[in-house]
């Protein structure tokens, strides 16, 4: 009798942990880490953005100054200059990545010998560290011995432009590297979209004697558009915070020619140590990124709704 009771009691003890509790146990570590590493810093930096504070002056507590940091930043013409530069960089770079990436995906959709190998080779740039890429593209751009000028027709050393040293070309130099590095990412997403298009759509179009151009506009592009937009969205967000590539290639120079907003934010936060002001700048960037992201998401939803 006692043995029977003990047998019954054991499973009861096990059941004392409910499914919900088990779920909580599994989720809690993630939530705690998320709160500690993301949510708390996020809100604390929001608070700091309304204060005058420098992290290297620990004895001087944050002093509440309301919207002064935002006011100062939004009325600083140099900040707007950096935003405009960043906008130019983002639009040009992401547009080129979309075109090149989509083109590569169209090419690799065809089945031919060595397709897998070429796909792997094309994907190599996205696996590399941006700092390493910055360092070796510096050599590639070198007017004395770099291969870039040679490939575009300057066969005599030192006869071509100094891509990183001339203000009019430096931004383009960064864009070219960014496109080289990230077009494969766009290609990868587009390729998965292209491969998911059912063959019967093309077969039906062929029966109707639709031209390849018509098939592209009416079948291929609409089918790939959601994935293409997601790729563009991710790349836009990433391009907005481009930092390591610029530091590796130009350091933001010459002058201010490649001083993107993330590079400027780094200087404010970690060279000038104006923690309050840099927090405010980070939030301004955040708002802009969210606004741009929302435009994309609306487009995406519209496409999906069709």
């Amino acid at each position, binding site marked *: 009798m006692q043995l029977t009771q003990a047998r019954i009691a054991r499973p009861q003890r096990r059941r004392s942990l409910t499914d919900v509790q088990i779920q909580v146990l599994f989720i809690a570590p993630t939530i705690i880490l998320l709160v500690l590493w993301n949510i708390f810093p996020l809100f604390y930096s929001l608070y700091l953005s309304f204060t005058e504070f420098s992290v290297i002056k620990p004895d001087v507590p944050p002093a509440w100054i309301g919207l002064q940091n935002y006011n100062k930043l939004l009325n600083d013409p140099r900040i707007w200059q950096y935003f405009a530069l960043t906008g130019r960089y983002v639009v040009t770079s992401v547009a080129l990545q979309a075109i090149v990436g989509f083109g590569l995906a169209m090419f690799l959709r065809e089945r031919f010998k060595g397709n897998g190998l070429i796909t792997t080779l094309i994907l190599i740039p996205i696996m590399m560290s941006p700092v390493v890429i910055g360092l070796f593209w510096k050599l590639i751009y*070198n*007017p004395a011995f*770099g291969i870039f000028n040679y490939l575009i027709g300057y066969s005599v050393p*030192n006869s071509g432009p100094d891509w*990183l040293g001339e*203000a009019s070309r430096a931004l383009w130099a960064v864009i070219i590297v960014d496109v080289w590095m990230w077009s494969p990412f766009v290609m990868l997403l587009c390729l998965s979209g292209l491969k998911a298009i059912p063959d019967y759509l093309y077969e039906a179009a062929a029966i109707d004697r639709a031209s390849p151009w018509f098939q592209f506009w009416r079948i291929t592009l609409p089918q790939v558009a959601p994935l293409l937009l997601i790729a563009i969205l991710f790349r836009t967000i990433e391009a907005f915070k481009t930092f*390591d590539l610029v530091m590796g290639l130009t350091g933001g120079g010459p002058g201010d020619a490649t001083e993107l907003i993330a590079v400027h934010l780094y200087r404010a936060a970690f060279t000038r140590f104006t923690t309050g002001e840099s927090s405010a700048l*980070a939030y301004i960037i955040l708002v802009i990124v969210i606004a741009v992201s929302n435009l994309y*998401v609306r487009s995406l939803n519209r496409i999906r709704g069709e």
Partner: protein
Amino acid sequence: MTRKLGLLSLGLAAALIAGCAAPAAPAAPAAPAAPAEQAPAAPAAPAGVSELTIWWAEWDPANYLQELANDYAKEKGIKVNVVQEPWGTYYNKVTAEWAAKGTGYDMVVGDSQWLGQAATQGHYLDLTDFMKEKGLDKTVTPATLLYYGTYDGKYWAFPTEGDALGWAYRKDLFEDPAEKEAFKAKYGYDLDVPKDLLQLRDIAEFFTRPDKNLYGIAIYTQKDYDAITMGAQNFIFNFGADWKNDKFEVEGVLNTEDAAKSLELYRELYTKFMPPGLSNAFFQEMNDAFISGQAVMITNYFAFFPALVNAQTNPNFYDKVGFFSTPAGPGGAQFASLGGQGISVNAYISPERQQAAKDFIEWFASKPAQEKWAALGGYTCNIEVLNSDTFKKATPYNPAFAETMNFVKDFWNIPEFGDLLVVSQRELSKYIVEGKGTAKEALDNIAREHTEILKKAGYLK
């Protein structure tokens, strides 16, 4: 989807203000000099202190210091641990400890620019009385004591690792009879190590032969941290200008006609006589330009010269390299931008540990310890060691280093130096590399913005 993207974007914001690294500085010298005598007996150990911790950046001199400190352990029985942190995160680590008023270190070998911040905010112990009483202030060159150790008239650090900008040149070309003859014919004086910055320009021009991929000079242009400011300020100082006067006034002190001429010269060297593609160049690019045979003269910190006399790293020219100090300006003023660091005591540790740290510094400052420091490869600031024949003959760059240690000069070292540095980096890069505006406009812009920063910080009314 929208909500997910919102979260994604929020995460991005946190990442935007997260840490990014500053440039690193690598390897150091291999300067000899045998210890002449036994190190003096260390003072009695303060009660309860059996171990001391020194923080320094991760590079060869820190290893040398550890080796030297092992002798201290043998003599005194106090183990000294030199804890190394990569250059990129070193400052962040130290400032985090300051913020926490932590006792993680007993001594720290810190950059000269930190002095103002550490002194005014109470992180470093005031070493004035100690250094004067023990006579340590008399053992090092006045310039190193001023810039590595002094802030607001008080001593906060003992000069430990000296460093400054110097020059390397191709001795084989300078000593070539045909080159000498051609040079004299063109410029009217003998080709030799330049005596002033105008001769430096002439030599750079003379050796610039793009058809042979040979260029006269390579100078700092990098905008990332402080390189272009350090390079250009040599010229600004030596043309008779300065960042400020004793009253912290900048207007009329920095933006002078002479200073404008100095920047025009710097830009001329960059645009006409420097290998192409060095628009964002710092120590690595300088050594690369020399080792590849592209540049006849380069500027760099002395800490990076050992690679040039090493047959493995500089196989073509390791035995054809000479060194000289930064030449004077046309008016005779001669200064060199300093690097290097001094050792300070943590103000938050117990008085016993502070005393133990002072005892170590006293031992470290002794001549035998400094001789061994130099022998291990550390760049000593000790006057006697610097002037000794043993030291000067130890490496080809030591004579220039010893000379330079007498006229080093720093950028700002007040707590606001970061604010001031961003402005000078931007404006100097804009004029020198980008070619935008004039030298005078660049200096006027710097002077105006520096004045605003100094006014806001209360140094100026």
